[in-house]
């Protein structure tokens, strides 16, 4: 059976989604300040790895990685509102790519599963 990652179009879909998704995130006043000092190139690579995971593709992310990567943002006030905003942007990006609603829900569910790790709970 094809994985969600394959159904969505594999690596090519991730490539297309990361630009659209990241542009939404950076343009969103609720969360863009968390990205002020980041190295775009490195950040894009991380976004790509994250989307690959959210698409159910090959990845090496663990809950501990998620915690470590976001701890400094939690210290700067990262909370559920921001997490929701990111999810909203992810949904928007996937809709723009005309992904079927049911697959979008699956991706969002995978993203949701990282919430407690991202917010250090």
């Amino acid at each position, binding site marked *: 059976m094809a994985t969600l990652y394959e159904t969505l179009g594999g690596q090519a879909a991730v490539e297309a989604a990361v630009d659209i998704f990241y542009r939404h995130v950076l343009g969103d006043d609720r969360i863009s300040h968390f990205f002020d000092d980041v*190295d775009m190139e490195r950040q894009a690579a991380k976004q790509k790895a994250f989307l690959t995971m959210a698409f159910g593709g090959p990845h090496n992310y663990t809950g501990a990685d998620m915690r470590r990567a976001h701890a400094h943002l939690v210290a700067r006030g990262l909370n559920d509102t921001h997490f929701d905003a990111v999810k909203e942007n992810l949904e928007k990006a996937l809709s723009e790519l005309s992904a079927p609603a049911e697959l979008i829900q699956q991706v969002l569910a995978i993203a949701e599963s990282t919430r407690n790790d991202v917010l250090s709970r």
Partner: protein
Amino acid sequence: MSELVFEGTTYEVPPGNTVLEALEVAGVTIPSSCRSGVCQSCLLRAVEGTPPATAQAGLRDTLRQQGYFLACCCKPDGSLEVVRPNDAGLRHRARVARVRSLNATVAELTLECDAAFEYRPGQFANIALTCGTVRSYSLASVPTEDPHLHMHIARMPGGIVSGWVHDSAKEGDFVDLLGPHGNCFYTVGNFGQTLVLAGTGTGLAPLYGIARDALRHGHTGDIHLFHGSIRQEGLYLVEELRALSHTHSNLHYYPCVLEGPADAQTHVGALDAHVTSTLSTLRGSRVFLCGHPDFVKMMQKKTFLLGAAMKDIFADSFLPAKTVTA
């Protein structure tokens, strides 16, 4: 069986195996993570032979053209000689052919180097002085147009290499040259695409090379070249760029200074705002950014938000040497 040469040793890659697997079986450790072409941890570079296209999927054009590939996706269909990414630079001997000043603080260093030094305009190379000090400078020259290598070198307070260039370098001196390095260069193709080049200070050097390289290859799309400095006297090659934009109708040159007074053709104001107000969208454009790290970082974000795709933004930050004041 395909033959694989890595760091001077020859290995066999059994059919169906990847370069990463073959090296691991032989006890060679290559950084790797996802093993499926996503994380790009296992990046290597082919110096002989051509890696299959599947091993280069998802890489930037500039990396592809230099033979970079992902070891985890590379099932070679011929023999390959590969190196780790940071071993790509070779040491060359270069002779100083000329030093001339471009303005009060920037000098152009012309180096004569053997033909084996193959580079793309916009890449950088490291100059190593006999005292052991090494500094990176971008290449402003274009191989087919300029017989030698050109570098634009600003005098840094207490700078060892820049001090040498400005005060004592003379024709006939020798330096070691390492490189070339860097992914900020023109890739041939997509001739109608709009190119946006923006740089501060000696960030003009790679852009001057890239713009002329694009013109030489017959690029037909608009080429917007923005050069920023604090004051008018910090700009350089102004006449050359104006002349070039007169002979090429698709080249647009925008000198920009933060503080006036400035001549009538020079914009006074912040460079980033000048770029974003001049060009309303960057959708489909290719962007090259060079110069001060803060400027480059800010512009990567701004140009991306204006619609440029991440893979079409090429950047080169000029970091000051850590030992400048030592």
